[in-house]
């Protein structure tokens, strides 16, 4: 059962991932990205990370992708298409293909440790309580740094999009 869902989600996410980079229209590309994100969120649930899965759907697939679509609609970018492929782009495909094969083989070849916690579920892992508790104890400092990261993002977006007087 688990294998079936994994394979289904894997196939759909790879397909939609390919569609992200193959679509001519940016809007279609972004919509396929949303599909990939939702598939990955479903995989998160299978990997006992329900909270992260919820965040992924709400923030990533929700807010960030809406921002993408908003900008696309605002600029009305549908009418732009790309020209023929350059030598650089063909090199890019080769590089990416080599990267895919090499990393996949590397990862496939790693022997699994005998006591992998992967098959026996750790109780309570990834619950809102567990994530929240460690976020406000062990990871309190990174949490506060992230607030300044977002502040930098806010200042940046404001200053960049300010129209000249």
């Amino acid at each position, binding site marked *: 059962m688990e294998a079936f869902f994994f394979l289904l989600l894997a196939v759909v996410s790879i397909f939609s991932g390919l569609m992200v980079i193959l679509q001519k229209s940016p809007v279609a590309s972004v919509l396929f990205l949303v599909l990939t994100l939702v598939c990955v969120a479903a995989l998160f649930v299978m990997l006992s990370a329900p909270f992260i899965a919820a965040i992924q759907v709400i923030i990533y697939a929700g807010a960030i992708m809406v921002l993408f679509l908003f900008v696309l609609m605002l600029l009305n970018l549908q009418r732009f298409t790309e020209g023929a492929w350059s030598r650089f782009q063909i090199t890019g495909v080769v590089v990416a293909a080599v990267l895919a094969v090499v990393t996949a083989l590397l990862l496939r070849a790693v022997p699994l440790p005998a006591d992998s916690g992967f098959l026996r579920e750790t109780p309570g892992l990834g619950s809102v309580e567990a994530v929240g508790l460690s976020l406000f104890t*062990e990871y309190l*400092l990174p949490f506060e740094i992230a607030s*300044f*990261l977002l*502040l930098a993002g806010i*200042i940046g977006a404001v*200053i960049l999009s300010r129209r000249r007087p």
Partner: protein
Amino acid sequence: MDLSRFNLITIATPLVLGAGVLLVMLVDLLSGRANRRPAQLAALAVVLAAAAVCLATWNTGGVSFFGQVSGDGFASFFNLIFLAVAFLVILAGPAYLERNAIHFGEYYSLVLVSVMGMAFMAAGTNLLVIFLGLETMSLALYVLAGFNPARQSSNEASLKYLLLGSFATGFLVFGIALVYGQIGSTDLARFSAYLAGAGDPFAGYMGAGVALLLIGLTFKMAVVPFHFWSPDVYDGAPTVVSAFMSAAPKAAAFAAALRIFYAPAESLGLPWERILWILAALTMTVGNLSALNQASIKRMLAYSSVAHAGYLLLGILAGNELGAAGILFYLASYVFMNVGAFTVAWMVNRRGEGRYDLGDFAQLGFRRPLLAAMMSVFMLGLIGIPPLAGFFGKLYVFTAAVQAGYVWLVVIAVLNSAVSVFYYLRVMVIMYMRENEALKDVDRIPATFAAVAACALMVILLGLIPGSVLDVARAAVASMP
């Protein structure tokens, strides 16, 4: 809950900077539409306060926040470097920003936020903190690079920086993920303990993890082959920002690299040495050869900073205490030379933002002898002529590499330094020899001039007392947990 686990002393300097960001924004908001002076003064005060706090808490922090940060002498040393750069670009900046009609208070808050990120890169003892510090720094830099939206090249520089920077971040976090997968933690102490104990350090996911981590970091350092963004970005960005970008973030990237790789360098063994050897040789050679025929002073300085990243890699490759302390000394002198040179470049620019020609320096030696003399100090310092600071930086790093047995690489480095003499001296030749250009006079800007003079003074001063500064750097390296 045990509150002693949150020792605020360890993060005192970035804490002051964080509060300062908010203060500067508030001051800017309250000080009316056209007046940016209060924001600048507030930013200068914040930097000075942070420097005072940094000195007061020097090497007193220790590891805190559940092993996330360490407020040791290493962090303090780098904080002082970042704060010095921030002070100089905040002091020198307004004249440039006014000239281009982009004087907004956000400049100051972005510089401070970015320095805060750097402080966490230098202090982080967990890959998560280093990653977040790096992103905070980079995000502010992407915006600063595009700080002149009216100029298209500034906008393109920021787009290019952002796209390539996030691309590199992808590699960096994938690397962190694989390291986490191998050791079950992103804690650096666990990382070096694992590598010290492992028979094959690159077994499992670790090999790919370390490689990807290295790609992400070398991108930020602008090491060949991941340097190609830097000339374009430094060239397109507003020049005050280029001065900042070529100095402080490079120092921060090396701080993070030392944090991560200094302790486990020995256990990484031969493949690691070979890769770094090739990267260092390539970076020096490509940087210097590309700098040779640049007509724009900004591009020349950009390629020269690529070459300097190559020399600095020698210190990491050496992996000994002198190498690490040499990097600290090198960076402390390098930032002043680079900030000074970029600042003089925009002071003498008389053809408008679009053209930074080496010809701008013509006759500078006769018209503004003091400015020309200071520019000569920067150029000679970048070459590494004794008794300037640049010489001792190179001396320490190269000696460390020889001690570690990389004689051939040091030979390449010395040859490269000889090549660099050509393009650095060319600036001086133009300043003192070329006469035929009829250009209008260089503006007199007291604050900016003071900033340049401070840079020149530091380059000379660090050259006069290199031994004691190196001792501080050695103590800083030794204080790393």
